């Protein structure tokens, strides 16, 4: 017991909490695009993490082989994933809007394997490392915070604010909120719903590219990387109430703190067990998500 209280009040626990917060920023960014697309179009993109994977490859090749500065390569990654998002809607989802949800899920699930296969054929199964390390920030002799995570957190914060202002203040943002509440009636407002869906898909894709830029700094790229953070992204979205961006944002931090705190007291893997256990328990108590709207 004494050991436990000592652990609780140690500087390393503070470091853990801060790291959880920083990891939450990345998870929040991951869930943002998926939630936006679901909230507006009402279709879950099972292949979302694979679009992030393709974004990571884009950034890797632009930077390592193309020799472009990292920031330019990242912008290229965002551009490519925005186009991928646009194409996903234009070529697949757009034809399935009236189809049963299971067909939509199967189609985006099929895209997942398509993107994976494509990456395997095009890039091989080798793990590729960007070879960039931003180092860490020493807060004190004992506490180090990774610059990559700090950067991710800051960018996630900025994106949340920009997206919020866009949705709250602009005509297009208002239309994006409105279309998720009554799709059919949008025509009477003069909204071209097809165009609005394509725009939303492109924005969602672009957010995947932004997430890719931050993940490629921390992880090796390989065709199956999507599988390692896809499920967690879905769980964050579901726990926050699918389509509820604020809920997803909060859920990201609950998840990340559970992972890091679990990892602090035991092995890192136990952190995931704790987080997923909490997810399952939460689904029993509130199947519609912790922050689902009352409707």
């Amino acid at each position, binding site marked *: 017991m004494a050991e436990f209280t000592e652990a609780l009040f140690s500087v390393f626990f503070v470091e853990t909490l801060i790291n959880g917060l920083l990891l939450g920023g990345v998870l929040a960014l991951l869930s943002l695009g998926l939630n936006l697309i679901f909230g507006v179009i009402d279709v879950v993109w099972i292949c979302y993490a694979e679009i992030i994977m393709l974004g990571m490859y884009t950034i890797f090749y632009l930077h390592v082989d193309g020799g472009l500065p990292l920031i330019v390569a990242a912008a290229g990654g965002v551009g490519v994933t925005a186009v991928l998002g646009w194409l996903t809607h234009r070529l697949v989802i757009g034809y399935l809007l009236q189809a049963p949800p299971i067909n939509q899920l199967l189609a985006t699930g099929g895209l997942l394997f398509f993107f994976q296969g494509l990456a395997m054929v095009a890039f091989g199964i080798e793990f590729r490392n960007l070879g960039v390390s931003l180092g860490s920030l020493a807060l004190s002799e004992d506490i180090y915070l990774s610059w990559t995570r700090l950067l991710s957190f800051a960018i996630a914060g900025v994106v949340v604010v920009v997206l919020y202002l866009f949705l709250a203040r602009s*005509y297009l943002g*208002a*239309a994006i*909120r*409105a279309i998720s*509440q*009554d799709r*059919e*009636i*949008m*025509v*009477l*407002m*003069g*909204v*071209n*719903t097809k165009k609005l869906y394509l725009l939303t898909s492109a924005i969602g894709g672009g957010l995947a590219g932004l997430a890719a830029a931050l993940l490629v700094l921390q992880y090796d790229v390989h065709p199956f990387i999507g599988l390692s953070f896809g499920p967690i992204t879905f769980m964050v979205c579901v726990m926050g109430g699918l389509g509820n961006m604020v809920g997803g944002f909060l859920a990201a931090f609950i998840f990340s703190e559970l992972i890091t705190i679990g990892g602090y007291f035991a092995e890192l893997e136990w952190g995931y067990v704790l987080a997923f256990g909490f997810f399952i328990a939460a689904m029993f108590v509130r199947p519609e998500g912790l922050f689902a*709207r009352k*409707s």
Partner: protein
Amino acid sequence: MLTLKHVNAGYGDFQALFDVSLEVKAGEAVAVIGPNGAGKTTLMRVISGLIPAMVGEIEMEGVSVLEAQPYEIVGMGIAHVPENRRLFPRMTVEDNLRMGCFLPKFRARFEERKSVVYELFPRMLERRNQMAGTLSGGEQQMCAIGRALMSDPKILIMDEPSAGLAPVIVQQVFELIERIRGEGLTVLIVEQNVRQVLRIVDRAYVLESGSLRVEGTAEELLQSAEIQKAFMGM
């Protein structure tokens, strides 16, 4: 202003309108009355492009409505207050009004139109930051009409504005429509509330089983024994 010529329309294989021809002149208020399931809502929806016409022609000031894309029709000066109001429930009153002038050519006049609507419905000004879903039925109807007025339409088409409202509120809604008429707006309204709607319009058509049966001035129809028997329980 608005002309329908020999319009057939429906959903899939089901045809709800048969050879419907009607005209609304500038400055007029016209009602289409008829029982449930007569095709009144279908008529409204085909005018504003929510469903395509099978055959026929619809013209707004001589321009074909059917050839336009559905989302272009509000830009031609036709604003539709849909059945059951269909507000965006989780958006504020003011955001609902904002959606009413979504088209880029309307946006510059947002503030001006907003003050027109708030002057017409002072209650909406009080509730401007409230979620539309939390308004009372009568207030929701005001908000829905206000949203349609944001685009400064030439013709307002209203689908059952009295549906689902308490009798005293129905009275208020009809008074409001009369005031809107007073501003010189052209109105086409479908209603089941025959007696009240005939008091505020110039002319009316009777729609039955998808076809227009009778046409006349409101005065004539109010006096008609047949109409009284069919719709007013006399």
